[in-house]
């Protein structure tokens, strides 16, 4: 064995921590990274997260496409504020009813950010693995740095196609029993039903993003904390987004919450994007704010 010649390209990455191996480094040809935002359970904040991650990465000068995989129930366009500019959609591109360029909606705020809307009129069977692969390949050839795939809820076709080609997965979780359980199902699928798993190209990197986090309730023992959820799911934490009124006002206005730099949720998304890009940032907004004695008695 000791004389065996190793072709370096075939050496399996050992489980040693290789710093930043997944991140584009200077001197390495920039690759397109496909990131799926998924959860299993509905209503936990996948679309809010997809929109904010995409905007955050574009803000850093990256070329980003964000794709809505929720065929029949599209909403990413509303959250991104481009709903009135949707002419062609993802399914039109797959069925060659238009070109990819015609369907990509350029963001009004960032030149390097593009939205690909889901079809509102077709059903989920309008997506095919080959079709999705073709679109992702074309985006890769166009030199996109990141492709964010906004998964629908559930574990059916739309969700499985959104995760199939992913390099990294952001699993959005609320600190609540049904969300955590569903996320664990999704983690199982990410490690078996993805192209990386099937080709043996190494696992899809999985990150936990906790949303609707309420530090006061965690402190009071009524909500699982970030460490509890991390312990159950066993994956790295990308960020903790506190429950914040800013999320609703942002979606009302069609301005992703990350652009609201006063709101704690916006700031927490900013931190999450920085971590996604390889920076180290301390977790913020985990501590309950101290309430005065009067506020505790008379309500806040």
């Amino acid at each position, binding site marked *: 064995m000791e004389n065996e010649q190793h072709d370096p390209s075939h050496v399996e990455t050992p489980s040693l921590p290789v710093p930043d191996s997944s991140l584009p480094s200077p001197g390495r040809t920039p690759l397109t990274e496909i990131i799926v935002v998924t959860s299993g359970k509905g209503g936990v904040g996948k679309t809010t997260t997809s929109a904010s991650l995409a905007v955050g990465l574009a803000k850093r000068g990256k070329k980003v496409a964000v794709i809505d995989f929720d065929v029949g129930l599209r909403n990413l366009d509303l959250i991104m504020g481009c709903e009135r500019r949707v002419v062609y959609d993802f399914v039109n591109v797959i069925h060659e009813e238009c070109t990819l360029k015609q369907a990509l909606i350029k963001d009004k705020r960032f030149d390097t950010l593009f939205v690909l809307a889901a079809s509102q009129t077709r059903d989920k069977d309008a997506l095919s693995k080959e079709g999705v692969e073709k679109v992702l390949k074309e985006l890769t050839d166009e030199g996109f740095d990141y492709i964010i795939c906004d998964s629908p809820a559930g574990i059916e076709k739309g969700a499985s196609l959104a995760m199939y080609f992913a390099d990294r997965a952001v699993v959005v979780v609320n600190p609540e029993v049904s969300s955590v359980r569903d996320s664990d199902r999704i983690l199982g699928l990410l490690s078996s039903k993805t192209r990386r798993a099937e080709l043996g190209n190494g696992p899809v990197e999985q990150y936990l993003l906790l949303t609707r986090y309420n530090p006061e309730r965690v402190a009071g023992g009524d909500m*699982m904390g970030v460490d509890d959820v991390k312990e159950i799911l066993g994956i790295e934490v990308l960020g903790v987004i506190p429950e914040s009124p800013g999320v609703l006002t942002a979606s009302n206005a069609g301005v992703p919450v990350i652009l609201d730099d006063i709101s704690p949720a916006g700031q927490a998304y900013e931190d999450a994007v920085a971590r996604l890009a390889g920076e180290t940032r301390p977790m913020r907004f985990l501590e309950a704010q101290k309430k005065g004695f009067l506020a505790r008695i008379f309500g806040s």
Partner: protein
Amino acid sequence: MGILDFFRSRPKNTASVAKERLRIIVAQERAQTGRPDYLPLLRREILEVIKKYVNVDPDAIDIHVERDGDSEVLELSVALPERNGAPPAPTETTTAAAGEA
């Protein structure tokens, strides 16, 4: 939080209840995925064997597999009826078999 809540005693810590329930269900569901789903069949066949000797209630048999480190424990619990054909009483026998996973 109002004046009444302030003086009311704190409810018990529901977050730790949630965590404990999740820990169990997640471990159980992880163990089930990707493995042959033989437990229902095993349960039926064991029941048939037992029935040759004792008349047990079909619902009186309970099977779990639990993982503990790198070994698995198959836990089988059968509620035996009382002697002389009396209605089944909750006499419980637990058999545990341990083996390497």
